[in-house]
C-alpha cells in the first residue's frame, strides 16, 4: 500500500499489517454507539429510578443479570485457561492466540463487573463487600477473586498496549513490556489460583442452598459438587469461546489471523474436558434424582411447570452437551471449520443455559406446598443494560485489533 492511500492512523498499526481506512473505522464505532446508548439509558434508569423498572421481584432477585454474569465469567475462562496452558503447561503453539484470549477475558470480566454495577442498584456502595466482608459467604469470595482477577487481566493486557508501534519506541515502555512478559508465568499462576476459586464459588452459591432441593448438592468439605462442576464446565467452554470470537474477528477482518493447528489444539482440549464434565454432570444428576426423591422432592416435581419442562434437561446435556463433545473429540469433524464453529456455538450456549438453570430455574421451582409457580421474563431495561456490555466489548476488541499486535501470525498469513 502506498503512503497516499494508507489510512491516516497507519503509523499506529502493528508492523506489516493492513487495516481499513480511518473513516470506515469511525463509522463502525459510531454504529456500535447506537445500541450502546440505549444500554446506557437503561442503566441510568436502573440507578435513577431503582430496580422496580425491571421485572426482578421478591421471587426472582436473581434474573437475567446474574445468569449473564455467570455466563460471561465462564466464557472468559478461556483467558486464564489458555494462559495456564501456555505459561504453566508450556504448549508453545498457544502463544499465537493467548494475547487475544486475554483481550476477550478483559472484556468478559469488565462486562461481569459492569452488569453487577447495574444489578446492585447502588454502585456507590459497591465497596461495602470489601470493607464489611462476610467471610463465611461464597459471594464475598467471588467478589474478591473477580476483582483481583480483573486486575491480573489488566496487567496481562498492559504489555499489549505498551507494544503498540509508537508507544514501544519509548525505552521505558519497551522495557516495561519486556519485563512484564518475563513475569507472565507468575501472573498467569496467580490468575489460575483466583479463577479456580471464583469459578467454583459461583457454582457453590446455588449448591449450598439447602432449602432448595433443585439446586442443593452434597460435596467435599465446604464445597458442594456444583463448585467443581462449574470449574470444569468453564474450562471446557472457555477455549471454545476464544475460538468462536477469533473466527468472528477473521470474518470481519476478511483474513486469516491464526493458523488452524492452534484452533485444533484448543478444540481437542475443550472436547476432552467437556466429555469429562458430561460424565460427572450425568453422575451428579442421577445421584441428585435419587437423593432428592428420598427427601420428598420427586424428580418430576422439578419439571412440571412450563417453560421448565423435561426438554430443559435434554437440551442442556444432550443437544448443547453431547453433540459439541462428539464434534470436538472427532479429529475429522473438528477440522471441518463449519462443524467446529457449530460445536463452539453449542458449547457456549450450553454454558449460558446451565447458568440460567442454576440461578433462575432454581428460584422458579416452588419449594413449599403453598408456593405457586411464578415465571420470569426480563424486560427491555434488563436486556438493553446487559447487551450494553456486548457493544462495549466489540468496541474494545475493534480498537485492540486495529492498534495492538494481538495476532503474531497475522503478518505471516497475510503478507502485504
Amino acid at each position, binding site marked *: 500500500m502506498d503512503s497516499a492511500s494508507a489510512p491516516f492512523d497507519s503509523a499506529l498499526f502493528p508492523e506489516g499489517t493492513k487495516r481499513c481506512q480511518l473513516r470506515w473505522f469511525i463509522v463502525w464505532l459510531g454504529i456500535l454507539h447506537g445500541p450502546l446508548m440505549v444500554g446506557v439509558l437503561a442503566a441510568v434508569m436502573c440507578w435513577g429510578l431503582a430496580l422496580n423498572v425491571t421485572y426482578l421481584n421478591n421471587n426472582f432477585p436473581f434474573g437475567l443479570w446474574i445468569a449473564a454474569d455467570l455466563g460471561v465469567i465462564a466464557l472468559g475462562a478461556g483467558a486464564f485457561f489458555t494462559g495456564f496452558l501456555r505459561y504453566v503447561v508450556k504448549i508453545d503453539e498457544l502463544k499465537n492466540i493467548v494475547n487475544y484470549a486475554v483481550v476477550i477475558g478483559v472484556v468478559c470480566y469488565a462486562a461481569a463487573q459492569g452488569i453487577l454495577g447495574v444489578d446492585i442498584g447502588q454502585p456507590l456502595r459497591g465497596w461495602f463487600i470489601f470493607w464489611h*466482608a462476610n467471610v463465611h459467604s461464597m459471594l464475598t469470595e467471588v467478589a474478591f477473586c473477580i476483582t483481583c482477577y480483573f486486575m491480573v487481566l489488566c496487567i496481562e493486557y498492559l504489555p499489549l498496549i505498551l507494544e503498540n508501534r509508537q508507544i514501544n519506541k519509548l525505552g521505558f515502555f519497551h522495557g516495561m513490556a519486556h519485563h512484564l512478559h518475563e513475569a507472565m508465568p507468575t501472573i498467569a499462576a*496467580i490468575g489460575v489460583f483466583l479463577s479456580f476459586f471464583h469459578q467454583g464459588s459461583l457454582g457453590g452459591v446455588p449448591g449450598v442452598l439447602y432449602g432448595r432441593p433443585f439446586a442443593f448438592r452434597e460435596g467435599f468439605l465446604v464445597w458442594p459438587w456444583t463448585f467443581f462442576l462449574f470449574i470444569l464446565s468453564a474450562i471446557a467452554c472457555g477455549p471454545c469461546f476464544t475460538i468462536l470470537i477469533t473466527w468472528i474477528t477473521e470474518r470481519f477482518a476478511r483474513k486469516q489471523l491464526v493458523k488452524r493447528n492452534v484452533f485444533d489444539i484448543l478444540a481437542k482440549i475443550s472436547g476432552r474436558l467437556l466429555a469429562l464434565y458430561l460424565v460427572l454432570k450425568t453422575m451428579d444428576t442421577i445421584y441428585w434424582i435419587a437423593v432428592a426423591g428420598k427427601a420428598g422432592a420427586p424428580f418430576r416435581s422439578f419439571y412440571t411447570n412450563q417453560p421448565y419442562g423435561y426438554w430443559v434437561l435434554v437440551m442442556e446435556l444432550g443437544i448443547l452437551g453431547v453433540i459439541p463433545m462428539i464434534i470436538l473429540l472427532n479429529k475429522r469433524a473438528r477440522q471441518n471449520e463449519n462443524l467446529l464453529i457449530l460445536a463452539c456455538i453449542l458449547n457456549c450456549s450450553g454454558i449460558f443455559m446451565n447458568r440460567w438453570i442454576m440461578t433462575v430455574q432454581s428460584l422458579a421451582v416452588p419449594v413449599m406446598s403453598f408456593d405457586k409457580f411464578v415465571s420470569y421474563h426480563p424486560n427491555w431495561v434488563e436486556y438493553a443494560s446487559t447487551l450494553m456490555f456486548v457493544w462495549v466489548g466489540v468496541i474494545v476488541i475493534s480498537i485492540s485489533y486495529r492498534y495492538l499486535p494481538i495476532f503474531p501470525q497475522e503478518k505471516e498469513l497475510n503478507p502485504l
Partner: protein
Amino acid sequence: MFPFAFEWVNDPVHFVFMGSLYTVLLCLVIILHYCGIRAFLDVICKKGGNGHDEHH
C-alpha cells in the same frame, strides 16, 4: 477490612480469607513495581530501546 476495623474477629477464617486477598494484592503490586523499576534501570543504564528480544 483491616485487622483494626471494629468488625474484625481474630479467628482462622478471617486470617485465611482476608490474608489471601492481601497476599494476592501484594504480589501484584510487587510484580508491577519490579517490572517498572527494572525498566527504569534499563533506561538509566541505556539498555532500553531495541535491546530486548520479541516476546509473545
